[in-house]
């Protein structure tokens, strides 16, 4: 999925988010789509002033306008950000809306809204703190130095650094590995994990068990277990 430039104005932001939402709804019913790689020229490293598009959108009088990172975070299938250059500001927020992040050896990361007198406005503070812990998140937001790729991997912000190939290839390889897994189990894994992190452990365990037993009704489950016993590669249909 290649994203068009999003941050030119409030209108382009609203249009981008609405297009993403249409796509999300379409994919929700599409058994063939097993994961999504998200990229876009410069989309993770917008020009200064990108925050202004959020301000414009939030002041536009629309009730709860959808924003791109918020929509990305609602996809049922795993999402992988292929960060080919840098990720900063609202662009980093967009990458944080994805489940996995791949970058290049020279990518740099900055949550640098404060240097422009702005705040993250698309979930960046919440998602960053949940991902890297509150201490590290606070320091990245309050002292917005750029992190290199290795430092970003060290704190868990990035999952793979593409060395000697481009991030898109690495992201596609990850997507292909996900494509070999049972599709409903993958969606439920993501749901149990992300929803469960917002619950008490006890509630999360209940959610996990309920989804696990819902899977008992899928034919993929019997295919998977039978294929394993017969030492054959399974073929999943998403049913």
């Amino acid at each position, binding site marked *: 999925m290649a994203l068009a430039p999003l941050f030119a104005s409030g209108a382009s932001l609203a249009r981008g988010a609405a297009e993403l939402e249409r796509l999300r709804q379409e994919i929700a019913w599409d058994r063939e789509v097993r994961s999504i790689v998200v990229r876009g020229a410069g989309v993770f490293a917008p020009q200064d002033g990108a925050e202004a598009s959020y301000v414009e959108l939030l002041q536009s009088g629309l009730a709860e306008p959808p924003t791109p990172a918020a929509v990305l975070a609602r996809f049922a299938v795993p999402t992988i950000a292929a960060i080919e250059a840098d990720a900063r500001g609202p662009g980093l927020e967009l990458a944080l809306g994805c489940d996995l992040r791949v970058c290049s050896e020279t990518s740099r990361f900055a949550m640098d809204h404060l240097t422009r007198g702005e705040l993250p406005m698309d979930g960046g503070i919440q998602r960053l703190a949940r991902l890297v812990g509150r201490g590290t998140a606070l320091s990245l937001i309050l002292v917005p130095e750029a992190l290199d790729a290795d430092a970003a991997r060290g704190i*868990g912000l990035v999952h793979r650094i593409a060395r000697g190939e481009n991030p898109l290839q690495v992201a596609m390889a990850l997507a292909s*590995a996900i494509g070999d897994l*049972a599709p409903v189990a993958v969606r*439920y894994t993501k749901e149990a*994990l*992300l929803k469960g992190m917002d619950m008490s452990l006890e509630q999360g365990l209940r959610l*996990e068990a309920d989804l*696990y*037993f819902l899977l008992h009704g899928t034919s993929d489950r019997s295919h*998977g277990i039978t294929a394993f016993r017969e030492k054959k590669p399974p073929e999943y249909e998403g049913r």
Partner: protein
Amino acid sequence: MPGFDTILYRKQGNIARITINRPEALNVYNIRMRDELFEILGAVKIDDEVRVVVVDGAGDKAFCAGADLSEFLTAPSQNEARMARFERDVWGRFLQLHQPVIAALHGYVIGSGIEIALCCDIRVASEDVRFRLPEPSLGILPAAGGTQTLPRAIGAGAALDMLLTNRWIDAAEAKRIGLINRVVPRVNLLPAVHELAERIASYDPQAVRFAKQAVIRGLDLPLLQGLDLERRLARLLTKTHRRSSPAPS
């Protein structure tokens, strides 16, 4: 305790040791093991002599290589399977032990094996340890708490990176992402775990239980309530001490 087929249970002083004991089958978890673990964990929980629990796997090859897939697809129905999960809630029992639990991990730690390790509080592994979560590749989910305990231990990003890629994780990566706390050479695994257990067992048992309770329950609470819980437990502990020490002369 007599009569167990799939686990061994021993008490040495204040340290209880539960050994997963199906080495001929890489210690894979089966229904029998569920019932035996359920029984022993119930007994350990109310045994005040036990101050620390150690969980390890018998044999050279594996701590536990997952669940016994030969028993899958045998449940009488989806609903009865679900009921059994909650009526024989071995994972709930595991997670609710008052005593600290230390996992001694070696060789293959796959699927349910990782989930058993994640029911423990401290994970020590030998250099040859190999982790993998194959569930989504089999059309199932981890259902021994793994989708909840794993992200709480290593974060959602790293957890998805393990769960959605079905790849092997070695000791170095496991240490880097926080899946294990310590790595030691294989010959040192049990001595290192025993030393750790002895050290914990030497501390005031009530303080140890409260510390575990404050951390585990506190993680489920908003910070302010977690701080309240900590203060309540600290006060309770000083009262307990006053009662048990001789009156000042």
